[in-house]
């Protein structure tokens, strides 16, 4: 899946609130075993350097959130009036 393509479709004004939601999904998820360590390290690196809400940070968060909590993540797009992105991600996951 081209996670960067989806992040580029998110309006910059929604990056902060969206990244906040994704972090919450990831940290409260019970599907810890689905997190690849390399991706976890990328997220921690961005968090440590204060750039988790940047484009590359969001790409890592989106990838992790879709691995750990796909339904919640797709619903979050819809809740934040980004139903078109939600639909495209759903199609991408099904294909």
């Amino acid at each position, binding site marked *: 899946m081209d996670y960067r393509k989806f992040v580029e479709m998110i309006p910059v004004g929604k990056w902060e609130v969206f990244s906040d939601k994704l972090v919450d999904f990831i940290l409260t998820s019970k599907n*810890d075993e689905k997190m690849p360590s390399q991706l976890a390290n990328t997220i921690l690196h961005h968090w440590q350097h204060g750039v988790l809400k940047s484009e590359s940070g969001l790409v890592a968060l989106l990838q992790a959130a879709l691995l750990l909590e796909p339904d919640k993540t797709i619903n979050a797009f819809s809740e934040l009036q980004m139903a078109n992105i939600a639909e495209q991600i759903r199609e991408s996951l099904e294909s």
Partner: protein
Amino acid sequence: MVKFGIEFVPREPYWKIIYYAIQAEEGGFGNLWITDHFNNRNVYVTLAAAAIHTNKITFGPGVTNPYLVNPVFTAQAIATLNELAPNRVVLGMGAGDKTTLESVGVEMQKPLTAVQEAVEIFRKIASGEGVVYEGEVFKVAGAKFLFKPKGRIPVYVGAQGPKMLELAGKIGDGVLINACHPKDVEYAVNSVKAGIGQAGKKLDEVDVAAYTSFSVHEDLKKATKATVPVVSFIVAGSPSLLLERHGIDIKKAEEIREALKANDWGRAFGAVTSEMIAAFSVCGTPEMCIERIALLLKSGISQFVVGSPIGSNVREAINIISEKIIPHFQT
């Protein structure tokens, strides 16, 4: 000024703990403590990740014990961590948990002597000395590192009973007091002061920390719900004398003990009373927690450690502590 510490149990994967550690560092916490139990993930691997992903927070095992990990190996791990994050590493050493030790067939023999000897051996070998030691519990026959350790690493002694508290004051650079209630902390600090006096040190030379079970939320019910399981285990493991000191019904405590043994969580958690929560946790809204911490500070502690569960949502709880509680004590 009081320092704030935070404790994590590496039952959680390293990436969650390190996320929270970075958040805590940003939020004004000065100390990070990682528990050491063989049935969780390894403390030193977790601390190594913390060393790499944090910049200024002081950290260490809170606490390790000398029965499962020989003090020579503890010194090796700590000295190596101190190369990863110079001058940010401390050692937390205690006697360990009897039940956990028994589950791996290790007897907790002479805990006071074991801790005292372990700290001596640690300090010698961690300073680069070759060690020949003939103790009652530990013997070392000329062990020496093949690398040069950096600096002097402070040792915190974890303690609960009066004799261990006194020893902790006497030999420790810091003391980790396992208590939450002002009465217990005051009692503990007095024992620590006795040890500090015996060693001819001053109180401000020793960092005295209250290592608490903590739960904060804007909604009291949510804070309480998060702390009940932790309190049930504390009550089950507490001696009758301590329970009586807090006016806790011994029969109720026994009921919790039996329910936990039977894995009947509903019955165990349902038997936890408000008196038990008040005695064995710092729990409530931010305002309630501030009030309790202020009372604990009057006992003479210099570090307040926020321990498990921290809150129903750890990330939210760290934000509350960073935004409302720590600033209250920095003004």
